[in-house]
């Protein structure tokens, strides 16, 4: 699997991904280049949930970079994987680079097959992602 064209073979990419430092998401060779989402060559983060946490980091770091400061904002590798296990049941698994579980909702056990996780997947995520794209969530 590679990142979408045309990034795969461009000067910024290695092995089909735009190179990026895991924490700052900054390109190791081009200090004013940052990568988020599907093109970013980081171990996690090919999900909309990841992008939600990557974008503020990149914004802060871009501002710092253009101001001549050191980019200090970091992304911990957060990603979310709502895993449908049966009709009406899902597991709302969220984790970081190290595989540590990072649940957004403390009352929802990420390793249990729950209807409420299915509810979030079925009814909530589309609206959440649309709100996210509008910069409202």
């Amino acid at each position, binding site marked *: 699997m590679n990142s979408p064209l045309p990034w795969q073979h461009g000067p910024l990419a290695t092995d089909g991904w735009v190179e990026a430092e895991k924490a700052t998401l900054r390109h190791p060779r081009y200090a004013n280049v940052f990568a988020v989402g599907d093109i970013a060559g980081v171990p996690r983060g090919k999900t909309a949930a990841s992008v939600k946490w990557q974008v503020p980091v990149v914004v802060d770091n871009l501002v710092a970079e253009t101001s001549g400061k050191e980019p200090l904002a970091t992304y911990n590798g957060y990603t979310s994987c709502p895993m449908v296990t*049966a*009709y*009406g*049941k899902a597991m709302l698994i969220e984790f970081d680079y190290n595989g540590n579980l990072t649940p*957004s*909702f*403390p*009352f*929802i*056990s990420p390793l*249990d*097959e*729950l*209807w*409420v996780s*299915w*509810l979030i997947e*079925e*009814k*909530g995520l*589309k*609206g*959440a992602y*649309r*709100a996210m794209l*509008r910069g*409202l*969530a």
Partner: protein
Amino acid sequence: MEDFNPITMFAILRESLGPWLWGLLLIALVLVVGVVSAAMKLRSARRSPKHPIIAAALAGGVATAIFFMLVPGWTMATHAALNGPVDYLAAILIAFIPGGGIAAMVFSMASWRCARRTTAVCDKSMA
């Protein structure tokens, strides 16, 4: 979790429900106005709110129970999918939205009716 503040939740609801959100908010506003005006009417008529509250609680409870049975189907699941306390709590809370609406409607109607009556079941004075 701290990211899910009221403004974010409203934005997500607006994106999820579209124009239906405004209709639901309008219904909620009408119900709130109905409950407040009915309570004021009861008070000015010096009637006890006991019977309207009992009627609202009964109607709301029955409606919540009915909607609780329907909620999993709304997500294309069955009751067998409910797998823990958090599932039941979520289903009850969702069912309570229409149940609460029906309770508010019944309270308003019963209060207006009681306020108009001079005798019979609603004649217990607040005094």
